């Protein structure tokens, strides 16, 4: 068996405990190993990062992708807002996304002569998160002091759409042109269901609370994504939209950069990537019969990564998150969470429970800043270290998290307890290991055995269905195939 892959190190942040308090990583425990994504699915595309070419490969790929983009609408005297989102900075340590943003600035400036190029970086529910990234990657300097974090409670701007007035963040749109700089990582499939993934930030990280609440409360789990499309299609946004540039990502790394003046064309390509590559990982993880989950990543509980899949998605992996017809409400999404009544049961009988394969959750290291009590309420959870418990008790979004969780003094005690109580030796570690998954030996064997049949099922049965449900022509396979080489 392979040794574990070094996990993403703890990161200093106001949303997490001090890195010095993370005494041990779960992958350092006895019996832990790793599997490479390429071992599981040999037909995953080649990656451009991380490789021995370093971060320069991201710069090159961005420059290459931008060669085909029309920027003639941007004049030297104009202003441009490059719109970014926090999520990009959580991918592979954040450097590739930061490099793409820097390259974007350089290319726009070189191609158009425009000098007033700003970075506006949106957030989720941690309003200072992108401020931290801007500092960490030197983006404030790179953008000559014109890089700021924007939050959904900042001043708004009304946007007239075909479904009425929605609201954006004023400073996202305070330029002549906007450039949509995002990534194709699927992350919250439970919310967006891989419908208009490329468009989503217009309804989220660039949007005000009214819009985000519309998405999460007014529309329903599968109609919600239209909120973003309505904003993007509005005359207000269309007048400013120049082009989009995306870091394209698969579960094992960055596979390229895609840029286009036509966001919907780009959207179809990343829908394909999302369904095909992440669909395989999710289907595989969904086949796990029992396991202990370990959280060990500098991100809120729901967003910790294993094999490119976040914990929130694994918590719903007992259902097919990509299947829009058969799964109206996944096991976890905010609509689902909202629909649990007072006796702790779903209001509708057909609402599925959180993934019953998760027997226990060991929370070794994860951040606050996202309402996560639903998880500790429904999955037995042990939090390592009192400092971490205190942090959750001080977070306005998580005042109930520790009500349902136990505290262990150290990781070893927590794991021992989990092994004893659950009776399983299968452990899945969400620690952002790059290129593979850290896990226990019995689970590694299980996944390696299951992967070939999952691969076949996704390619032949599920992928065509998923694309059909989204109105994406399966022939896009050839177009995308040409873009991303596969070395077996």
């Amino acid at each position, binding site marked *: 068996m392979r040794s574990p892959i070094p996990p993403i190190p703890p990161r200093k942040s106001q949303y997490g405990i001090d890195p010095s308090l993370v005494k041990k990583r779960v992958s350092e425990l006895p019996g832990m190993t790793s599997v490479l994504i390429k071992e599981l699915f040999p037909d995953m595309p080649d990656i451009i990062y991380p490789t021995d070419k370093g971060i320069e490969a991201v710069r090159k790929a961005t420059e290459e992708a931008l060669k085909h983009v029309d920027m003639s609408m941007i004049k030297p005297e104009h202003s441009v807002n490059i719109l970014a989102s926090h999520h990009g900075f959580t991918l592979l340590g954040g450097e590739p996304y930061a490099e793409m943003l820097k390259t974007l600035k350089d290319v726009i400036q070189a191609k158009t002569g425009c000098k007033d190029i700003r970075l506006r970086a949106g957030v989720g529910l941690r309003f200072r998160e992108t401020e931290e990234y801007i500092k960490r990657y030197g983006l404030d300097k790179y953008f000559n002091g014109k890089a700021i974090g924007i939050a959904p409670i900042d001043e*708004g701007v009304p946007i007239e759409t075909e479904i*009425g007035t929605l609201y954006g963040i004023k400073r996202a749109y305070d330029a002549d042109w906007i450039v949509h700089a995002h990534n194709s990582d699927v992350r919250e499939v439970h919310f967006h269901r891989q419908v208009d993934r490329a468009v989503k930030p217009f309804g989220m990280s660039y949007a005000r609370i009214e819009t985000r609440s519309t998405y999460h409360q007014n529309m329903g789990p599968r109609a919600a994504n239209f909120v973003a499309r309505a904003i993007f299609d509005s005359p207000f946004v269309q007048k400013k939209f120049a082009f989009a540039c995306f870091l394209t990502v698969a579960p094992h790394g960055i596979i390229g950069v895609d840029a286009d003046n036509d966001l919907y064309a780009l959207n179809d390509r990343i829908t394909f990537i999302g369904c095909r590559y992440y669909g395989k990982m999710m289907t595989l993880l969904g086949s796990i019969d029992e396991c202990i989950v370990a959280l060990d990543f500098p991100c809120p509980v729901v967003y910790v990564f294993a094999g490119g899949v976040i914990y929130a998605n694994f918590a719903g992996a007992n259902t097919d998150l990509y299947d829009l017809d058969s799964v109206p409400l996944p096991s976890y999404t905010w609509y689902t969470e909202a629909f649990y009544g007072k006796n702790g049961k779903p*209001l509708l009988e057909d609402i599925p429970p959180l993934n019953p394969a998760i027997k226990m959750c060991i929370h070794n290291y994860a951040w606050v800043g996202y309402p996560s009590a639903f998880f500790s309420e429904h999955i037995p959870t042990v939090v390592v270290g009192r400092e971490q418990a205190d942090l959750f008790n001080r977070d306005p979004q998580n005042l109930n998290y520790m009500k349902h969780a136990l505290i262990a003094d150290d990781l070893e005690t927590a794991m021992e307890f989990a092994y004893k109580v659950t009776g399983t030796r299968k452990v899945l570690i969400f620690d952002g290991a790059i290129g593979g998954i850290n896990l226990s030996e019995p689970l590694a064997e299980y996944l390696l055995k299951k992967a070939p049949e999952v691969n076949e099922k996704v390619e032949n049965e599920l992928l065509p269905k998923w694309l059909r449900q989204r109105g994406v022509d399966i022939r896009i396979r050839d177009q995308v195939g040409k873009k991303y080489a596969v070395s077996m």
Partner: protein
Amino acid sequence: MKLVNLIAQVDRGKCVGCKTCEKVCPVLAIKVVDGKAEVDVDRCRGCAACEQRCPVYAISMQKRDNPLLVSVDIASVNYDEILKLCSNALLHPEQVVCYCTGTRAEEIAAAILKGAKSPEDISFMTGARTGCKVECIQPILRLLEAAGVKSTPPQGGWQWYGRTVTVWEIPKKVREKHSSRGFYFDEDEKLLDRVRTAPLQGRGVK
């Protein structure tokens, strides 16, 4: 219901009087007086919106010596009135509208029945919208509207701007134009109808 265990504290030496905190506070508990921000300790619900947006990092969140439990007792109003209000707002009374505090629609409705006239009143009375500060504004506005309360946003503030569309209101032509691209309007409308009319699990019970 929320246990308010934090309070905002202003470092007057750092404060530049920009009023950002005033514009984002969901309960109007912080105001600039003579060029410096001041917190009303009885009103503050410990949401940290001001601390997270102050441009000069002049605000910190401190532990309250005596945490404050804020809630509206649903037993203190006629539950039939709550049912009526939630039904008009197309919400199930037991559905959670604020994920951070676990506040259900019925408690918001009770706050309105007890005199809340704005989202600010509701947040002050129930603690809803003092967690993430983002996701629950629409059901709150829907419930106020269903009660016939005409609320206007705080003048000059950024607390909220207005109610937006619900799935029931999506025009037919929009549905027809876009449903082939994975937007399940009709199906989700039916789903939400099933939810809002689902049986109660604990009528009137806390």
